């Protein structure tokens, strides 16, 4: 009897929390407020859709930095969001949603890499399939240089080892703090700083010729 009363009370509290969060969902278009996360935790599909809309691109791009294959990146991003939905209840701090999502994405990528190694896939991670310069069409000089620089950066990124690429991508592209990157990767801040510094030096070395060409023109 007492149990059923307690259960009803719990449901009521949960419902109230969900209703409260509902109000915040409508307000949250640009950024994801903790209310949206609470709402998604209550099983609101629209709230989870908002989360996907907000973080779909960064998560997909983060994954793409590792796999360089759009189809595979989308498959892994899909897996990331399905896992996130499945384990949303385990997210303790709603404000750390993005950190948590990147952490899942990183795990998913690592698992895929492991699996790819296991399967000895012919086309897989870091295959420079998507890196070939498309030579079709004549481009203006500036655009060509831009394209070459883009490819140089892409190649330089691929040349970084996993740890350096992770910290570089999260810090430079996604503007995460060291603390957040540490939460995502499990590495100490000291290691992250060292890796980022080395990553920058390697990147600089690889793209320097393109930068000087740009300066000369």
């Amino acid at each position, binding site marked *: 009897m007492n149990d059923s009363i307690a259960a009803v009370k719990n449901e009521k509290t949960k419902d109230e929390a969900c209703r409260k969060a509902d109000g915040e969902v409508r307000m949250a278009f640009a950024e994801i407020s903790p209310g949206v996360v609470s709402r998604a935790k209550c099983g609101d*599909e629209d709230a*989870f*859709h908002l989360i*996907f809309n907000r973080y*779909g*691109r*960064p998560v*997909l*791009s983060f994954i*793409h930095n590792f796999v360089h294959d*759009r189809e595979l*990146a*989308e*498959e892994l*991003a*899909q*897996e990331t*969001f*399905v*896992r996130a*939905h*499945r*384990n949303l*209840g*385990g*997210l*303790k701090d709603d404000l750390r949603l993005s950190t*948590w999502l990147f*952490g*899942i994405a990183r*795990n*998913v990528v*690592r*698992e*895929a890499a*492991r*699996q790819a190694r296991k399967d000895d896939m012919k086309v897989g991670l870091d295959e420079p399939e998507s890196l070939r310069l498309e030579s079709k069409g004549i481009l203006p000089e500036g655009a060509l240089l831009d394209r070459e*620089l*883009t490819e140089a*950066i*892409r190649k330089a990124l691929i040349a970084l080892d996993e740890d350096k690429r992770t910290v570089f991508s999260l*810090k*430079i*592209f996604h503007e995460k*703090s*060291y603390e957040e990157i540490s939460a995502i990767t*499990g590495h100490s801040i000291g290691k992250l*700083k060292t890796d*980022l*510094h080395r990553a*920058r030096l390697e*990147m*600089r070395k690889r*793209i320097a010729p393109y*930068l000087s060409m740009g300066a000369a023109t």
Partner: protein
Amino acid sequence: MNCERCKNELEDFLYDELGEARGAEVRAHLADCAVCADLRDEIERENEIFGRFYEQTSIEPAAEMWGAIRARINSEARERARIDRGAWSPAFRPLDSGGLKAGLQALFRRARAGTFGRLLAPATLRQAAFAALLVALSVTATTIYLKLGDDGAKNSARKGEETAPSRPPQQSVTPTPAPSIDIARSGEKPNNGLSATKDAKPPVDRAAPPRQLTDQELMNRQIARAEREYQKAIRMLDQAIAKQRDRLDPALIKQYESSLALIDDSINASRRALRERPDDPAAGQFLLAAYAKKLDLMQDIAMK
């Protein structure tokens, strides 16, 4: 501040990761040192290029991606609802052969499901499923045996005095039962002290009819056996989970461990209840249900 220290802290300064005081020191040094200021400009220029690169190369999710995610989420929700509807875990429905079949199907379906289902060593999964199957078969067999035993008893009662007079059931039970093979295998010593040495073994009366166990004893023995099978399956899954622990989400591991602790509490409470009320069939059922829940949870984690 000298140039060396400024170089070391420059990136942190640009990322706003230095405290107020140190940030002010770097700022002051940059105002006075042209070399360090050039380095700052270079880093800022690089960051601008990298930012442009990200803007150009980051990809928008395809329109159908949300649809695919939604479909998978809904399908998982349906599966969970189906599992929650049953009082017993689908991996263990001992008294219902349909449930057993459904449980095993669910087990293998879940093993196959998803891109990463294949990451779990299939051998471990097969072994765990086999252990669960053994548990289910063993308890089902007991139930059938007990049912047949009841029918047999009724039949013999009907036959009346045609057969040799049988002793009442209570008399057929040895006061200090010999340990079962399973117990002997598991290294537990019998408590009658007679088998402490080889020589002390009591003479075996081969002409004596096989000792009949009471329903209660049989059920207890089957529960003990089921418990061992569950523990075997749990050990296997535990090893599988330990192997992939480092690539699981830490929040998930935390949640898993707290759920596991709750289930373990429930197992211990059920075991205590069974010890206190060995003739209460519900206590045994609770114990096995708790094990089934644990197995279910571990399978879920192992297949993530």
